[in-house]
């Protein structure tokens, strides 16, 4: 496999290893995990992810050498039913390689982070043996996500889609005997169930879309569908249905309205899970799906409008909720929903490059923010009750710090921002990396988020179908800057509002190194799609994706020209929002026990934002409770009372008994018994009758002989 020996397909034959390295890693950890201990498990898991990254980089090199031409590599035959064929085929083109690099790159950094983070977390939760299980699930996730992004047909994509849904369930409910605040309970497993079921509703839509696609096009392979769609001449309604149902799948997986409700609850999982799955990779699968299906969405005009409106509405809706949250991770969760709304709106409008660009930069800064928030939570928790230096789980009375004993009666939530404050002096590395992520998310130049978000806004301003999308996104961007500012002032500035924040400790290097790397990516990553003609290579990322998009959609990529008015407008709005947040939260920081100033100002509106606009309660009342009632009715009344009790027991069993009794007593005993008794007695009687012949009298016997002779002779002589 030397470079000099590479053929035109380069390292293509190695592509299955993006799936197999993590798969082998997880198998090794299953078999040897307990024996190896934490270090062995960590080395196996991180190397598996890193090797997957290495193979992805090799695929990138291969594509560069081949000028971005798409390659397919069939690994094995899978389904073959008549003429319906789905092989396990890997697709290596610029779009899938982009996703591969993001997943394995950010994934490896998060694996490294999790090595340190989970060391503490398993001890705080009291179950050190769970360490291996965590990394098994993480590697499984990488493997499944790789299957998703590298599949060459909708069905292969769906295999990965379902697989990451499973991993999401396993990892959200990792501490399935606990509640999110650490007490014993079932809330974590409820959150995992909610994620899986909400995703299932989306999967239903995706499956229906696949069925329709197969029904009309006769195939599910990308290589065959997209050329056909490019000159599609069939009914518009079919494409409406396919794209609409696919959109339903996207709203499930990428947390858009109406199925986004699982993502905030998913924060019950450990922080690396939130970073990897619910910020950087799994939730972007929907965006990837739409970008991949670009030709299908381009076939009908209205499809663009539908998707873009859903995305933009979600972006604004979630941003408003984020403003009213007090849990540090919940703010970031709703921020993720909102940013996904940006991405979905972008690819919905047909701005695939802008959407994917934001996907990549968002992966950088949102993973950074989640990991950094994990560092903050860890710092506060270690400030609350530090573990012994040996790393053993804390026992009840073995604390060296007596001042902490009085805390065990209260339930302390280390994720509540009202317990934080002034942390920038205590955890400086975390603080500075968090600032990088915040500025990127808020869209301040020259951070990465500015370039990608600006490109989306630029494309939105040019969207012919409606300008509503542009205004929704602009307002959402304003909210974004505001809530991030609020969060930063609350967490890092002012004075600590709880002694746990006072004693917060900086995290070890395994946690800080990924933060720094991601901070660098969040700062400089935007330059991969430099929008100007001078300076760096212009639109490098756009051209890179263009290879795939032009090949699949059949027409040239339209790259909008940089507009200073849009850029300045969005920057000013973001800065104004941050300044507003400083006025409210930064100038006069909150004290311990004080209510949120915005709550005082906005009253019921803030209550709505804090209560997530009561969407979960609405779903509970409209869908879940009637469903439970129906289920209970069906099981209790229909199945148990009617079917079991009445029909089977009364109807069938009792009547059968009656029939059996009837057959047994009157018929069997009454009739058949009598007949047999009759026969017996008849035999007896005839027997005793005949025995009367046996007199014992010789003379009678002699007479009988004589009579017989007479009869026979008479017959012979007289009648013959």
């Amino acid at each position, binding site marked *: 496999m030397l470079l000099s020996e590479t053929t035109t397909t380069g390292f293509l034959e190695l592509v299955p290893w993006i799936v197999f390295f993590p798969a082998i890693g997880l198998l090794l950890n299953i078999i040897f995990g307990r024996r190896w201990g934490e270090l062995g498990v960590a080395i196996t898991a991180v190397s598996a992810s890193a090797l997957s990254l290495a193979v992805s980089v090799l695929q990138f090199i291969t594509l560069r050498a081949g000028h971005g031409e798409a390659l397919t590599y069939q690994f094995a035959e899978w389904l073959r039913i008549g003429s319906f064929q789905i092989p396990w085929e890997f697709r290596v083109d610029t779009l899938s390689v982009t996703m591969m690099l993001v997943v394995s790159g950010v994934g490896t950094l998060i694996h490294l982070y999790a090595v340190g983070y989970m060391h503490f977390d398993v001890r705080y939760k009291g179950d050190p043996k769970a360490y291996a299980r965590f990394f098994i699930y993480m590697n499984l996730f990488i493997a499944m996500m790789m299957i998703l992004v590298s599949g060459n047909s909708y069905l292969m994509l769906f295999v990965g889609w379902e697989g990451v849904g499973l991993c999401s369930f396993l990892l959200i409910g990792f501490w399935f005997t606990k509640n999110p605040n650490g007490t014993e309970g079932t809330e974590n497993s409820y959150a995992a169930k909610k994620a899986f079921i909400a995703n299932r509703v989306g999967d239903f839509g995706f499956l229906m879309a696949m069925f329709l696609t197969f029904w009309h096009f006769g195939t599910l392979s990308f290589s065959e569908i997209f050329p056909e769609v490019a000159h599609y001449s069939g009914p518009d309604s079919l494409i409406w249905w396919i794209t609409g149902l696919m959109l339903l799948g996207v709203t499930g997986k990428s947390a858009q309205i109406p199925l986004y409700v699982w993502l905030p609850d998913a924060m019950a999982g450990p922080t690396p899970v939130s970073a990897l799955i619910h910020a950087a990779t799994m939730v972007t699968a929907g965006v990837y799906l739409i970008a991949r299906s670009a030709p299908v969405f381009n076939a009908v005009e209205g499809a663009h409008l539908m998707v873009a409106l859903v995305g933009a509405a979600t972006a604004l809706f979630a941003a408003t909720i984020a403003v009213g949250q007090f849990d540090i991770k919940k703010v970031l969760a709703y921020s993720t929903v909102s940013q996904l709304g940006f991405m979905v709106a972008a690819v919905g409008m047909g701005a695939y490059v802008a959407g994917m660009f934001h996907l990549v930069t968002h992966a950088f800064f949102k993973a950074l923010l989640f990991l950094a928030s994990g560092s903050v939570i860890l710092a506060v928790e270690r400030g609350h009750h530090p573990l012994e230096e040996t790393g053993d789980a804390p026992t009840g009375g073995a604390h060296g710090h007596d001042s902490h004993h009085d805390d065990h009666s209260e339930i302390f939530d280390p994720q509540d921002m009202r317990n934080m404050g002034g942390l920038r002096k205590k955890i400086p590395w975390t603080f500075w990396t968090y600032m990088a992520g915040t500025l990127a998310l808020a869209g301040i130049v020259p951070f990465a988020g500015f370039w990608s978000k600006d490109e989306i806004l630029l494309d939105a301003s040019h969207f012919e179908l409606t300008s509503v999308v542009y205004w929704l996104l602009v307002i959402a961007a304003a909210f974004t800057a505001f809530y991030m500012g609020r969060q930063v002032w609350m967490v890092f500035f002012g004075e600590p509002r709880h002694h746990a924040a006072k004693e917060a400790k900086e995290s070890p290097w395994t946690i800080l190194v990924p933060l720094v790397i991601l901070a660098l990516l969040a700062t400089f990553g935007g330059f991969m799609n430099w929008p100007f003609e001078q300076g760096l290579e212009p639109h490098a990322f756009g051209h890179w994706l263009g290879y795939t998009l032009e090949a699949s959609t059949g027409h040239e990529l339209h790259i909008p020209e940089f507009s200073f008015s849009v850029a300045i407008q969005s920057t000013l709005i973001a800065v104004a929002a941050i300044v507003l947040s400083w006025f409210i939260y930064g100038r006069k920081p909150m004290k311990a026990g004080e209510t949120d100033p915005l709550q005082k100002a906005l009253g019921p509106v803030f209550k709505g934002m804090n209560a997530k606009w009561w969407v979960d309660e609405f779903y509970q009342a409209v869908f879940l409770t009637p469903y439970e009632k129906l289920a209970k009715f069906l099981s209790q009344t229909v199945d148990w009372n009617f079917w079991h009790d009445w029909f089977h027991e009364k109807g069938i069993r009792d009547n059968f008994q009656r029939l059996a009794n009837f057959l047994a007593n009157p018929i069997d005993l009454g009739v058949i018994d009598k007949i047999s008794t009759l026969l017996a007695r008849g035999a007896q009687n005839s027997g005793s009758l005949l*025995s009367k012949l046996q007199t*014992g*009298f*010789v003379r009678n016997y002699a007479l009988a002989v*004589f009579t017989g002779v007479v009869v026979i002779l008479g017959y012979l002589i007289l009648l013959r």
Partner: protein
Amino acid sequence: MVPIEYYVGLSAVLFTIGALGVLTRRNAIIIFMSIELMLNSANLLFIAFARMYENLGGQIFVFFVMTVAAAEVAVGLALIVAVFRTKETINIDEASTLKG
């Protein structure tokens, strides 16, 4: 010679008397005598027809009958003696232990 009808009649009468004796008499020896009488009536008939048809076969057959009668009497009298030894009587009405 005497007409054959007289011989047949005599033979029939003898046979009937013998049969009646077997059926009605109680004494075992008398029953045996009656059986002999029946056999002899058959013998008489044989001789008579042998004379009528000038065929010696009938007379030869009489020899056979007499031999059989003798053997039978020997066995029968032995039986009567055995019964008498157990029951002290030869009244055949008393030998009804096979009554079922």
